[in-house]
């Protein structure tokens, strides 16, 4: 009788131990599945999720999860490929457009010299202006595609951001005069050093300032803080909160046909992000505020 009792106890203990082991193994497998799923998605990896478990349900779960993640990754890849193809096509087209445009400009120049009636000269002037406009558009398109694609890499170095900003503002001095805008500028005297690409910075500032020059209702403020935050402000009655948020979208222009492609601010945003910074716009009380942080 005693023996039977002891056997029963021993059996029960073994059973408990076995179940405890099973639980521990299952929990380990769950942890492994979670970790591997995270890594798979983060790295867009092809490797299947495979925990150290022989349990049928665990394996089915892993297989199912792997399949789902593979689909997500494939979709991502397809999108990126399509995007890349588009950007490459734009780059190629803009590159290829340069040659015939230069050709056309050259011939137009020759035509000018070959003695024309005043009417013909008038028409020619228009043609030359249009060619110049197309050239500018092509250059902007090319700049955008280079900026947006990964092939335009930054030449990084220590740059005094304040100095670059000052330079950019100086370049637009004539444009400000023409529009009758007196910019209010407050930039710290000391150097504000950052690791950045000087040309990219110049381009970013240039695009933002030229945008302000073109669209401001009459004033323009630049304020830079030492923590490398720059605020560009101007009066803009034509905007509202919604359109302010969309300013940096590709091809978005508030008023079409003023000769802008809508790419200027988009380029600025792409380049800023490439340098590891952030840019945003807000609108309140009739004033537009662009904030740039590096």
């Amino acid at each position, binding site marked *: 009788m005693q023996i039977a009792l002891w056997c029963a106890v021993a059996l029960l203990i073994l059973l408990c131990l076995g179940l405890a082991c099973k639980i521990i193994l299952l929990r380990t497998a769950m942890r492994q599945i979670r970790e591997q799923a995270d890594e798979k998605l983060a790295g867009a990896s*092809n*490797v*299947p999720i*495979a925990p150290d478990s022989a349990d049928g349900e665990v394996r089915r779960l892993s297989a199912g999860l792997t399949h789902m993640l593979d689909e997500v990754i494939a979709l991502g890849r397809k999108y990126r490929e399509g995007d890349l193809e588009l950007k490459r096509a734009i780059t190629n087209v803009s590159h290829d457009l340069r040659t*015939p445009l230069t*050709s056309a400009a050259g011939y137009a*120049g020759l035509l000018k010299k070959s003695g024309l009636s005043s009417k013909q000269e008038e028409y020619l002037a228009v043609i030359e202006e249009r060619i110049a406009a197309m050239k500018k558009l092509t250059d902007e398109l090319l700049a955008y595609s280079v900026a947006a694609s990964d092939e335009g890499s930054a030449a990084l170095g220590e740059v005094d951001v304040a100095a670059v900003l000052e330079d950019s503002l100086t370049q637009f001095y004539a444009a400000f005069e023409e529009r009758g805008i007196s910019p209010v500028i407050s930039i710290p005297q000391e150097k504000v050093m950052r690791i950045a690409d000087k040309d990219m910075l110049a381009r970013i500032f240039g695009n933002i300032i030229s945008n302000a020059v073109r669209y401001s209702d009459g004033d323009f403020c630049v304020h830079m803080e030492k923590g490398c935050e720059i605020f560009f402000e101007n009066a803009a009655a034509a905007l509202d909160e919604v359109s302010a948020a969309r300013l940096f979208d590709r091809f978005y222009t508030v008023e079409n046909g003023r000769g802008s492609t809508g790419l200027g601010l988009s380029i600025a945003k792409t380049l800023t992000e490439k340098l590891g910074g952030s840019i945003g716009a807000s609108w309140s009380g009739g004033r537009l505020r662009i904030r740039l942080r590096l």
Partner: protein
Amino acid sequence: MEYVLTTQNLTKIYRHAAAVDRVSMHVRRGDIYGFVGRNGAGKTTVMRLICGLAGKSGGSYTLFGKRDDARGIDAARRRVGAIIEAPSVFPEYTARENLQVQCAALGAEEGNITALLEYVGLAETGRKKARNFSLGMRQRLGIAAALVGSPDLLILDEPTNGLDPQGIVEVRELLLRLNREKGITVLISSHILGELSKLATAYGFIEKGALVKEISARELEDACRKSVHITVSETEKLPYIFERSLGLTEFKILSAAEADIYGDVKIGQLALALHAGGIELLRVQEKDEDLEGYFINLVGGER
């Protein structure tokens, strides 16, 4: 750009001679990286170091963002499929059994084996033991074994060695398909540049253990294309002059001062035409090479 593999001054010294001498290479995600070098230049040794088969003497490498001495390096290795020197095949097993062993070691699903065998063209082998395979079939089995774990990086050491021309084409097609459809990065070594040129998107040239140059396929092509590169005082009127006076249609205006002319150009006529058009010809550079020539120039032409 995401780098799948980078090495930083990786070095391996065998008996006082550096088999791998401070190699710093960069393999981008999605590349087919052609590792070119003569026999004994160190290609296989570099691959062995990266795969963890041999210990390094100096430097380091980073695989999928994990350094070689980090804890996560084994997890990173899991994403690699490789064939070093010869495919690893058990001669006494059938093709399917060979893949089953590999599946078990990696924890991969055996259900994919049939599809994989079809993918590499070994579906009809049935119960044939691997010792009865031809060399081409064994290579393909090796590639299948490397693919079993659904890798993100394939490291192939001269995979077309000993294959007949048809086999070479089949392997090439397979690799291109894998790269395109599954986004698998490929690091492939060879001493035959002509073969790689149809496949690679980036090149690394290695000689006497040192990485001499790294270049993208496009740059290589541009470097080898027969062309004349001219520097002039201004490029505005160039197209007119090229088209009218010289009958050239294949050219590219690079900037306000430089242009490339492709194809055969008679330099004398070019200079005269430019002078007549009032453009100063500042510099002329001729380029004409095939890939082998490029490589030989690179490594100094010693034989």
